[in-house]
């Protein structure tokens, strides 16, 4: 093979490799965020067992609900704040209501702040793990169950669990159509 052809092949494979690397950045970023708690990303459902001899401490937890842009649903949590103990499981109910006169699909996206506390916030059950379909006027109450890891650093006295509710009716329809 000519030397120039060899160089060309190497360069073309580098191009293809870097194109794939661009896409590989997506999962790399997700893993990186989960490990570091970057952007308040939290992992999926977890079941955690602790030693009996952990030191539990008091921590304040705030619950924030927010609608994205023109999302019309009523979305609230039953409590705004609780005083919790680390290592104990808690349940908080959230209410969804579709006041419009057409069916809609929504997805709640969680975020925990401060980011460094995100990895200690373990959810065992959450409505945010799936999409919600509500008929016109339908109302639904769904729980979040969570445990705060006793390893939570001492300089985090307050954790905020925020949910943003997105209207995904349109992309839901698009996906259904393409399947």
């Amino acid at each position, binding site marked *: 093979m000519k*030397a*120039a052809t060899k*160089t*060309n092949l190497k*360069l*073309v494979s*580098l*191009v*293809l*490799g*870097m*194109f794939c*690397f*661009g*896409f590989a*950045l*997506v999962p790399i*970023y997700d893993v990186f*965020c989960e490990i*570091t*708690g*970057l*952007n308040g*990303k939290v992992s999926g459902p977890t079941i955690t067992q602790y030693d009996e001899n952990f030191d539990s401490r008091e921590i304040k937890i705030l619950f924030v609900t927010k609608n*994205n842009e023109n999302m019309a649903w009523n979305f609230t949590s039953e409590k705004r704040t609780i005083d919790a103990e680390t290592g104990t499981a808690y349940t908080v109910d959230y209410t969804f209501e579709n006041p419009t006169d057409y069916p809609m699909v929504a*997805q709640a*996206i969680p975020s925990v702040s401060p*980011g*460094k506390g995100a990895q200690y916030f373990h959810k065992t059950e959450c409505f945010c793990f799936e999409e919600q379909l509500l008929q016109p006027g339908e109302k639904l109450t769904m729980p979040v169950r969570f445990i705060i890891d006793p390893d939570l650093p001492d300089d985090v006295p307050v954790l905020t669990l925020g949910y*943003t509710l*997105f*209207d*995904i009716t349109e*992309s839901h329809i*698009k*996906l259904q159509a*393409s399947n």
Partner: protein
Amino acid sequence: MSAVIDSHSDDHHHGPAKGITRWLYTTNHKDIGTLYLWFSFLMLFLGGAMAMVIRAELFEPGSQIVSPEFYNQMLTNHGLIMVFGAVMPAFVGLANWIIPMQIGAPDMALPRMNNLSFWILPVAFGILISTFFMEGGGPNFGWTFYAPLSTTYAPPTVTFFIFAVHIMGASSIMGSINIITTILNMRAPGMTFMKMPLFTWTWLITAYLLIAVMPVLAGAVTMMLMDIHFGTSFFNAAGGGDPVLFQHIFWFFGHPEVYIMILPAFGIVSHIIETFSRKPIFGYTSMVYAIASIAILSFIVWAHHMFTVGMPIAGELFFMYTTMLIAIPTGVKVFNWLSTMFKGSISFETPMLFSIAFVALFTIGGLSGLMLAIAPADFQYHDTYFVVAHFHYVLVPGAIFGIIAGVYYWLPKWTGNMYDEVLGKTHFWMSFISVNITFFPMHFVGLAGMPRRIPDYALQFADFNMVISIGAFIFGLTQLLFLFIILKSIFAGKQATSEVWEGAKGLEWTVASPAPYHTFETPPEVK
């Protein structure tokens, strides 16, 4: 330039074809270099006209001449056209013309691909500009096209923008493959890597940067396309994506990209400074290693563009320190240029004037870059005119002055005629003064808190903005003089010798002026 080359064509068994087909079908590196250079010049005026609209709107506070929506389109396309249409093709054009002559090769390694990589560029920019005449108007989300501005909230023409970027990327990648293959395989016998001229060196490294990051940009716009049309959620939080991810991917491309736009200029001014100081470049080896270090570091500093997105403190510190580290190889280069001039027997022809201005003003841009690299301070500077001042200092009196210097330096080799030195110096002084009137006050308004990318501003910024606009108008008009000087040199002027400049070193100065259509068909011997 065609007229001059034509007159010498009958020296050879096959000269250039006649008429338009010569340019459409050409595989000659000099023809393609010329095409690239003229295209980038056209784009410079188009992007420049958009800058004039921006500065006219900002001449006084309040809404002046265009709607905010149109202002956003001007702003976006000014950036896109200057980056992808003016600076990058100008460097590729210079590479096409000069690299084969510097390394003693008869042509580029892949001449047909060379033709293709040029001719898809006008197509790409045709697509981009056509969006202005469509419903929804052109791209309006800034040249960085952050999602979701460029996905959820984008005008419907964004799909055309995506395809245009794809084509520009393909053109750059093909051009880079061509340049690397040429440099690695077609050097004259005896030309080892450490004897290679610095412009060739800078382009070799730049081409590797392009090959590494242009595919990532292609990936980013592909993800946008899928988010917009195929229901994926790469950058859409509702579907589990993350808009901040877009910024990471974009700047993973974007930071090496800004070095792509400056490294070849480093090579050009190195040649010019050694020629007009009549001394060999000081610290050739350290120059090569400095370029390589800058290129490698450029891959691990990208998040300094996004200090304010909410990173862990460790991330902020990492990106802050690595960014500051880049000042070291860059400083090595600046000191080498100064040492080359030290005790040199300097003469101040136009290319040298532009090169000295490059060293001084690029360093100002580098210094404000260091200020921006300090993460805590960046929270204050972020998205203000201080950033605009910074990157215009490294791109206008940096990259563009480097290109202009290179054009003056090699113009007699291309056309066979010397340019008009008096007009050249006039062009320099007008540009030098007006570029500073334009961009220096931007530091002040930026530090005082004027945000970038807005069509209106608070009253206290009015005076400086008027000064900036006046400077910009002068700078814009001055470049018409540059066009005139080039045209004049094509059609008239003192006949240039083959050496052109007293004591100029390098193989390109051993061939006749104008350079014959085919050069180095028998490779020269390099000792």
